[in-house]
């Protein structure tokens, strides 16, 4: 008989394992006795030891940047005029600060941080994205409530990129922002068609900034795949980090607006 068949025969054999309650109880008693014996030492060690994590504010800084910086939005009081800003007021105010009162270089660097923040907040690395590094002087235009047919897009950023061969390339970013409101059915496609008429697809980006993703918005985005969704809170978070990284000079009023936008989001917004 081969070894294999011997083993199979053994395996098929019935191996009765009788239940031995006493053996189980004895084992448990031994463990329990040992536990009780060592319990005072364990309790004493637990009380003496510091079992809590050490506090470090660095954990917050990794997510939101330098919170001790006075220019950080979290350190600014939100705007409190006794009523909540409406969506158009909010985007107009944002456009105002991105324009930087006509200070071209400040406007460029704020917009550069803003655009980087849009991509990062959407979870996209900024490697192959539109950038405001080589903007043709005088070409950057920031417009709130830009007319698109009978509708108005919340925010449009447009500029010409300095090309190495001496030619200029038009760039366009459209941003539609929503706080607790649904995107209407035709809005996104109308704005995309508008962008399509103005610049080629590689020279444009369309962002939908929302309070939180709802099933309705997700369905709209399914039909409008060029639109990149992101949340306001993610945008503000990334904007703080990008502004610090590009060393954008602090501005108290701009910080107040960012804090206000942060607070306009619901608790469900992340």
């Amino acid at each position, binding site marked *: 008989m081969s070894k294999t068949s011997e083993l199979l025969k053994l395996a098929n054999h019935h191996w009765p394992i009788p239940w031995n309650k006493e053996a189980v109880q004895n084992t448990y008693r031994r463990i329990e006795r040992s536990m009780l014996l060592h319990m005072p030492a364990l309790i004493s060690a637990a009380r003496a030891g510091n079992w*809590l*994590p050490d*506090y*470090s*504010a660095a*954990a*917050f800084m*990794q*997510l*939101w940047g330098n*919170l*001790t*910086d006075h220019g*950080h939005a*979290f*350190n600014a009081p939100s705007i409190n005029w006794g009523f909540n800003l409406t969506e158009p007021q909010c985007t107009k105010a944002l456009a105002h600060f991105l324009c930087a009162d006509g200070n071209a270089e400040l406007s460029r660097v704020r917009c550069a941080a803003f655009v980087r923040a849009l991509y*990062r*907040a*959407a*979870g996209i*690395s900024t490697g192959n994205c539109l950038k405001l590094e080589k903007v043709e002087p005088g070409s950057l235009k920031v417009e709130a409530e830009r007319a698109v047919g009978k509708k108005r897009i919340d925010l449009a950023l447009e500029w010409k990129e300095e090309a190495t061969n001496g030619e200029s390339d038009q760039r366009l970013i459209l941003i539609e922002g929503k706080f607790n409101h649904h995107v209407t059915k035709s809005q996104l496609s109308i704005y995309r068609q508008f962008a399509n008429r103005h610049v080629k697809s590689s020279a444009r980006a369309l962002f939908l900034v929302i309070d939180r*993703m709802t099933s309705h918005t997700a369905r709209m985005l399914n039909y409008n795949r060029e639109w990149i969704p*992101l*949340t306001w*809170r*993610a945008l503000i*978070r*990334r904007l703080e980090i990008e502004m610090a990284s590009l060393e954008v000079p602090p501005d108290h009023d701009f910080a107040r607006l960012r*804090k206000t936008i*942060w607070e306009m989001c619901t*608790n*469900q917004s*992340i």
Partner: protein
Amino acid sequence: MSTVLSLPESVRDYMQDSGVRTAVDHLLGQKTKDFPLDLQWEEVLSFHDALLMAAKVRRDYIAALMEAWELVWGPVLKKHSRLKELPFSDYDPEALPTPEVIWQDSLYRIFEISGWQQEAWLYTSVEISPKDGLVIYIAAEEGAKNISLLSDTSGLEFWQPDDNGYWKCKVGGSINVAGKIALEELLMAAEEAIAYILKG
């Protein structure tokens, strides 16, 4: 020697740094199913670290309130044998020391006052806020209808009526830059309130 409450570094940061405060408030409002979709993989652990630190701030805040209560209310209440602390089973759920009640409201400790004509209760509470520092409250009620035993605060040096049937201490335990709170006046206030209620 003057009595001083030293806030842990975490609570001091929370009270004195609005940036940290905004971050912590946001993190403590998150549900365990929430996740910021803009995060990259290399930031995931940072997110969980930040949640842990926010929980640490809340835990340390609770520890600071318990210490504050012991320092301010403890000495005067322990002097009176007529006061017997209620078990948690007799607490109103909104006064239990849950994370939510302590973080969003106050730390409450409730006592039964014996020797009164009817059943009577004494409510004490402490809370710390960035604006006011350490604030103490007191209330007392009797009978099934919860009639307040507190009349107006005229003649009292340290107390003013609060909107919720409590007395609120007028003097604050303001937080100094080192995160310390001097408790002398609050101790006197506690003595004054208890003497007023128990004599009634």
